């Protein structure tokens, strides 16, 4: 289970204020805190409050700050292709693009970029028409992502398909479709593409979000989820992921399995 820490994101107040004040401290604190908690990748997002033409410079600043104090690779999270490319240039190690959709124009833009920078790429199973209702429609869009990645020479282990979780209070029928989609996506190619999920979406505006998050995470892992963008500092969630990894026979059991999961 690859944990992508979601915390360095301008939508959080402390990060937004740090960006505005050019204060590196909160950024670097979160980089270290997430790494210590067991994150494998740090997601970096400038947030919507940064002006479009400033996004590339801010992205570069955030990536460099985070990697100054953490050895983890970064996921460059933006809807702005110029900001993404700036992040990729600044990143050390194998970076990740977050994300493209299955819209042809976007795939034509981001897939070659992933190939050029030897980056991993998240592909959302949606297009200009929005998020599909059923597992089959999600899988169909996932296939578009697989084909386009293949055409650009991106190996399947670098393509992370996100079947898109929606809040379970207002879009309850989507959760089982996401589970079914995960199973189908793992059968689209051999070797199979990787899968990921913006997990926290599933519990937006719900009560007891951590419970919903970790329950869904475990269910998704059983269906083939390889990674997730999560709150890496939610200890119960990371514990659940560690236990699920053992129960799926992905990690060899030992009494210190919670600790070894975090040490990798």
């Amino acid at each position, binding site marked *: 289970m690859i944990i992508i820490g979601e915390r360095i994101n301008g939508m959080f107040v402390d990060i937004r204020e740090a960006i505005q004040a050019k204060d590196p401290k909160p950024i670097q604190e979160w980089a270290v805190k997430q790494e210590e908690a067991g994150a494998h990748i740090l997601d970096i997002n400038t947030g919507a409050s940064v002006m479009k033409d400033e996004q590339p410079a801010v992205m570069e600043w955030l990536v460099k700050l985070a990697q100054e104090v953490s050895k983890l690779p970064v996921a460059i999270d933006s809807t702005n292709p110029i900001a993404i490319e700036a992040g990729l240039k600044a990143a050390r190690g194998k970076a990740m693009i977050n994300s493209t959709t299955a819209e042809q124009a976007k795939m034509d833009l981001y897939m070659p970029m992933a190939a050029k920078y030897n980056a991993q790429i998240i592909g959302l199973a949606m297009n200009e028409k929005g998020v599909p209702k059923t597992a089959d429609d999600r899988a169909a869009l996932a296939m578009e992502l697989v084909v386009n990645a293949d055409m650009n020479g991106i190996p399947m282990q670098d393509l992370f398909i996100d079947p898109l979780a929606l809040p379970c209070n207002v879009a309850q029928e989507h959760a089982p479709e996401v589970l079914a989609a995960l199973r189908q996506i793992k059968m689209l190619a051999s070797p199979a593409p990787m899968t990921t999920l913006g997990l926290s979406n599933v519990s937006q505006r719900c009560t007891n979000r951590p419970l919903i998050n970790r329950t869904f995470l475990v269910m998704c892992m059983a269906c083939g989820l390889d990674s997730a963008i999560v709150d890496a500092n939610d200890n119960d969630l990371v514990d659940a992921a560690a236990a699920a990894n053992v129960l799926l026979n992905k990690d*060899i*059991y030992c*009494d210190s399995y919670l600790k070894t999961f975090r040490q990798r």
Partner: protein
Amino acid sequence: MAVNIVKDSYKSKVVEITVGTEANAIKIGGDSTLPFLHFEGEMPNKQVLCLEVFDMVPEGWPENLTAAYEGVMSDPVAWAKKCVEYGADMVALRLMSAHPDNSDTSPEDAAKTAKAVADAISVPMIVVGCGVEEKDAKVLEAVAEALAGKTCILGNATNENFKSITGACMVYGHSVVSQSPLDINLAKQMNILMTEMGLPNERIVMDPLSGAVGYGIEYAYSIMERARLGALMGDKMLGNPVIAYVGQETWKAKESKASVEEFPEWGEQAKRSILWEVVTACTLAQAGAAIFVLRHPESLKQLRVHFAKMMESNAY
């Protein structure tokens, strides 16, 4: 259509352990592939072949085994020298006399023997206790101190006594054999606990306690294989070189000891016993074992030839 060579790519590798002092140091492990798959990774170090020395005359050995050590079996120093003559990469000294049912040798006296042997030979040493966990904790502490600076492998540390052995090895610079009874979960947990004490991971050798061919070798085989796969896929707490006490197991087997008169259908004992040792070692090498503690010099000779052949590159 052309044939595409399928090569697995692995994230990690087995840690490399160094034993012995500078000029005679040996490196063990470091593999970044499954055993002998030179086409998809590296096996930088060759298999280590050791011969065993007892600090007392062992009982129940068949004649073809005692014949190889005639005249030296009551003198561990002379015996160890003989092993080096036979071409052993390392000498494995077994302090059997420390067993309460034998002479119950004191830790100090056992350590003196170990020191005398170590000073007499040029190759690195493995020193193993008598198998009584409580006694071994004390004996190996004394041995660790007496052999300070020799960079040996000391064992066997078990779930019951690893703390004192690990502590002593940390202080005096030795590696430790971490022994677990055919249990990969316990093996992993032992490594975690030992590294948490501060022993570097590059100083742990794993012993999953294999049986001989015909005596449950398949259990250890699959555990070793699982550990190797885990190591290659990034599980650092299973990425340690594996030691196999081959001689200890095979020479217990009836097939190694019984005469041809007793079992005519089995053929000559002298030939059969060597093969039992050689085949057990070859099998465990395929599962990933790196250190082989043998008893008969003829087995060592045959394995040397076999391993040299297996270590020839099969890269495409």
